[in-house]
């Protein structure tokens, strides 16, 4: 039904989508997972041309939609989209949100559209809210209305962009239940989501997107239980990471400390771990910036939720050589501290830079 070839999208110099190739057939439910900022939303928005692709081809039922002369609004009527932030029309009642499209765009009569709208509201369990305004609904109710609004246009496919990410945890399941029901009814859907369990049991296929490409794809059982590639494994193993780039010896250490603290809070790591990471970061970076040559360092903290381990990684440009072993004498104290708190310290030369990795000793 949809065929994407070599799709790319750039914003200025930033290439957000690199070379996307995918095919979605009638009745499939595709889950799209991946770290944030890797272009999942952009991919969805390119499919209905909310964002204009920079290159490649998108075919729908064999028709190239990027060809000039395509009736884009007409095309969008066949593809619904559900947004993270609901985006209901604030000046219209719930029912009017469902009738404006059919009446204005598909030439349905008002009464007919209202009857259909009421049916859809019953389906999502909100018939009694027909006369309410969006600001009188909870987040979960708004999202269900948004889904009903999509359905009112009788689309052939619905694109969901993180439909539950803006919801209170208590409301996530009511929305997921509606999507599950649609899946059972055979609706073709592409869903960007962070709800892994949901993705596993609702989808026919899963795309793992990373850094602008579909890095790995497959049936949910395969992709979740036996990912073939490293970054997929990290992601599935719930490895969360924090990156910090250092370009000068006078970098802002306290900004980094703040980020580490927030990262640890976010992943419920105890304060002691945060302090240890800060201490190690300070010592590691002090040694690295003292090395001759220009300063170009990437510092990464990675936390695996599955294994509950914290890993540190320092990539630095420069002459080959283990930065810690060649450290000048005044840094002996620093090295002692590092040895105290970290284990599995390893060195690797990758391309034109040196990589030092280590793991925090268990507390």
């Amino acid at each position, binding site marked *: 039904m949809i065929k994407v070839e070599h799709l790319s999208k750039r914003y200025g110099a930033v290439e957000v989508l690199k070379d996307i190739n995918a095919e979605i057939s009638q009745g499939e439910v595709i889950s799209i997972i991946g770290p944030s900022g890797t272009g999942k939303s952009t991919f969805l928005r390119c499919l209905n041309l909310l964002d204009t692709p920079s290159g490649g081809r998108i075919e729908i039922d064999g028709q190239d939609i990027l060809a000039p002369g395509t009736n884009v609004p007409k095309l*969008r009527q066949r593809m619904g989209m559900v*947004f993270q932030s609901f*985006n209901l*029309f*604030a000046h219209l009642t719930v029912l009017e949100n469902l009738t404006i499209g059919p009446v204005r*765009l598909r030439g349905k009569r008002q009464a007919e559209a209202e009857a259909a709208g009421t049916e859809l509201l019953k389906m999502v369990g909100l018939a009694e809210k027909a006369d309410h*305004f969006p600001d009188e609904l909870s987040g979960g109710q708004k999202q269900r209305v948004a889904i009903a*609004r999509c359905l009112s246009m009788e689309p052939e496919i619905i694109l969901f962009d993180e439909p539950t990410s803006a919801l209170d945890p208590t409301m996530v399941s009511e929305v997921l239940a509606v999507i599950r029901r649609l899946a059972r009814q055979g609706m073709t859907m592409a869903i960007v989501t962070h709800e892994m369990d949901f993705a596993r049991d609702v989808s026919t296929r899963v795309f793992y997107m990373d850094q602008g490409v579909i890095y790995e794809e497959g049936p949910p059982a395969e992709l979740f239980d036996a990912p073939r590639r490293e970054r997929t494994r990290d992601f599935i193993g719930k490895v969360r990471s924090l990156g910090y780039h250092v370009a000068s010896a006078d970098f802002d250490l306290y900004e980094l400390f703040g980020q580490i603290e927030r990262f640890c809070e976010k992943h419920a790591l105890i304060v002691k771990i945060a302090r240890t990471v800060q201490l190690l970061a300070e010592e590691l970076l002090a040694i690295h910036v003292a090395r001759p040559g220009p300063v170009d360092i990437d510092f990464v903290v990675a936390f695996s939720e599955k294994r509950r381990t914290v890993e540190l990684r320092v990539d630095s440009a420069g002459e080959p050589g283990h930065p810690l072993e060649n450290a000048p004498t005044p840094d002996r104290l620093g090295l002692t501290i590092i040895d105290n708190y970290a284990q599995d310290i390893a060195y690797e030369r990758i391309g034109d830079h040196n990589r030092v990795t280590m793991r925090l000793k268990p507390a």
Partner: protein
Amino acid sequence: MTIPAIHQSYARQKSFVLAVWLLIAACLTLWSCEQSRVSPTGDAQGNTQTPAQSDVPMKPGQPGTGNAANGWRSLDDLARGRIAVMTGAAPDLYVTHTFPLAQITRFNSKADFVLALKTGKVDVAIDNDLVIRAIAKENPDLAILADDFYNTPLGAAFRKGDERRQRFDRVLETIQADGTLAEMRNRWFGDDPQIAVMPVIPTLKTGETLRIGTSIFTGLPYIALIDGQYQGFEVELMQRFAAQAGFRLEIVLMEFDALIAALAVGKIDMIVATLSITEERLAKVDFSKPYDYDRSAALVQKRNLALSALATSGQALLASPENIPASSFFDDLRASFQANFFLEQRWRLILNGLWVTVLISVTSTVFGTLLGGLICYLRMSSQSLWQRLGSGYIFLVRGLPVLLLLMLIFYVAFASFNIDPVIVAIIAFGINFSAYVSEMFRTGIESIDRGQTEAGIAIGFTPAQTFLNIVLPQATRRILPVYRGEFISLVKMTSIVGYIGVQDLTKAGDIIRSRTFEAFFPLLMVATIYFLIIWVLGLALDDLDRRTNPKARRTARATA
């Protein structure tokens, strides 16, 4: 609350505001009537009981008014006083030269000039003696301090080199030779110009138009608008000239200080407005031979006049206190209403002015809103050229006082077009309004979150449909309160159109004041009418507000 209930409570609130305003208006009127009634009575008491005290001016301690303790005897007593003159008229030059230490205030309207004197804002008002005498006659609390201390020729002004000047001089010679001019003098410069009857002079309905600019504020015996007809010495002179020289006469009312500029750019063909022939003016325009001489007189409040001066001045006509009947507040109010509204069909002036004010306000609001929409479109365009054009326009228009914008359009942009000044006013206020509302529109549109636009487009609306169906209804509601405020200031701002010769409501009030020399009643009347206009037009916007309120719509449906 149901809709009718909301409506009612709303209406109640409005009527309350209206009632309060009318109460304030009534109190002010009461106060003003009391004021005008008290002064002569005060004099009466002063004269019989403590004469010395009554002569002390109400506001002592002004620079140079020291002599007034004994009353003023001559103009020299006021060498350091506060002197009122008409802008640019002969007394202006005279006073500036003769009394360099005086504090001179210049007025554009004789009504304001008399009002300033009556309220003690100035000590003395100096102007043409005939005009001053006419004012003194109608205002028993004013008296003439001195007269004939200078005299300057009056002439009609033409653009340099205009051959119509020679034709005017020839007509002047003819009517001088056959005695018509003397007859005119007798008619108008007698004891009471009020009772003079304007002769019927056959006017041409066809032929070349001659636009003569004048200022209504000169007053009798030169020019006044009575029963909708121009009357007075200068009017007769204009009509005689037009009839004999074969022109179709059109009298154009303007602010006095705008006359020469209007002549220069060709908005009018000549000026007959008690204009003194001065060196300075001769540099800019050509003058006809003098048709009269401007003699001077100085008017003061009677109670400031020295007793001896009062006795020796030949003003037997000054009303004595006994002749003023005691009247109640309501009698005064009725008399004021009669004088300012019914007499000489003045309500026609008011009605006409009201129509012009409403016409200009509503039309320029519509025009300005459409133009503002266009400017907003440019401003929000993705093309930087359009964007810069839009913001440049807004920057320029907002940086310019409306009065200047109005004058620029009238005197510069449309200098060589014979265009109705009402249209110029609509264009000027529309342009001004557009600059403000376009920014208002932009903030309104930007306040609607982008997500709703995206949702509209994702459903299959075109961007234009999305704007009309989704963004516009919401933006309209958000900007309505500010829009309403901007509209109200527009209505009030239109009161400056007199500068380009449009007779709006304010001007109608001014014209009435120039005849009755009463300040408070006409001002309050006009103010009240402005208030009513804003109130009624505001109701229309309220209605829009109600109709675009989605929740009110639902309630309406529920109760239907």
